[in-house]
């Protein structure tokens, strides 16, 4: 990864750091909700000791809240684990559908902070390219970050995938102009990927070569 590190390593570190911070924030929130629900159970128990009757429906609801947050935290940690290992995965045939779904999940907090609804339309069949998993996460995250900032009145970004004869296209819509962030353009160049816009369909199209193994 040395050529990558020399040219655009900082933007990879920035992506890794930002996503990690977002994950820690989400986990803290899940823990805080568990903490308050457990605390409320304790409060109700103490009141029951003093004679106030316990409502079983209320207890069930608090237990369900805790279980829901544990599931949420488990999902966040699973995504975190997949993301953490993506940085040290070698060049491989990458399932873009899976990778985009993960990147969308990892970007959901950032989207929420910008009041943007983020959607992903999974492909009907696997779409693969050969590269490092982290490069795809990095380029998609960089694009999303810029697009969230300039999301129009729709406040909605939808990602889709399209297989192409010599690679794949990652589609962002509705988008009217190409991305301009210097790091994103540098990474696109590094991957020999290209961006274009379709004004009729209001799409930003990132075209990825099938084989980026040399990068």
């Amino acid at each position, binding site marked *: 990864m040395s050529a990558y590190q020399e040219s655009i390593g900082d933007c990879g570190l920035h992506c890794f750091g930002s996503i990690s911070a977002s994950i820690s924030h989400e986990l803290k929130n899940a823990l*805080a909700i568990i903490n308050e629900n457990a605390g409320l159970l304790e409060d109700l128990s103490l009141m029951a000791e003093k004679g106030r009757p316990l409502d079983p429906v209320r207890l069930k609801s608090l237990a369900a809240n805790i279980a829901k947050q544990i599931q949420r935290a488990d999902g966040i940690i699973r995504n975190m684990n997949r993301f953490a290992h993506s940085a040290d995965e070698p060049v491989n045939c990458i399932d873009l559908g899976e990778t985009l779904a993960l990147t969308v999940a990892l970007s959901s907090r950032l989207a929420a902070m910008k009041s943007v609804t983020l959607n992903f339309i999974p492909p009907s069949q696997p779409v693969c390219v050969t590269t490092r998993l982290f490069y795809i996460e990095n380029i998609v995250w960089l694009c999303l970050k810029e697009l969230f900032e300039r999301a129009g009145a729709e406040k909605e970004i939808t990602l889709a995938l399209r297989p192409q004869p010599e690679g794949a296209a990652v589609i962002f819509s509705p988008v009217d102009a190409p991305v301009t962030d210097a790091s994103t353009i540098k990474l696109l160049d590094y991957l020999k990927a290209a961006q274009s816009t379709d004004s009729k369909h209001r799409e930003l199209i990132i075209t990825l070569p099938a084989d980026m193994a040399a990068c």
Partner: protein
Amino acid sequence: MRVLLVDDEEQLVSTLAERLQIRGIDARWVTSSMAALELVETETFDLAILDVKLPKMNGLELKKRLHTLHPEMKFLFLTGHGSEDDFKIGAAETGADFYLVKPVKIESLLEKMNEAIQRQGESE
């Protein structure tokens, strides 16, 4: 004491409000800065407990707006991040003592609420 809680995690803020109510505190909650600004048009609060990272308008900006509208209102910040940068920014707004990292123990929160009411009042 009348308290306004603002956090985009509804389950967190509603449960925390219920726990404060059990302790005799008149607590209201909302999940956005806009809803907080709307609420303070018709109601007054002694203290606002704000999440730092709120969508659209963050907690620091919300604090400034609330302070302009109600200079007597006191503030506590809650954050999920706990990064040094966040701490510095939050602490600069209210003082390090009034910046709490989630999850927080209710006893610590109550203590800080009382301190905020007393100490921020003294400094004005």
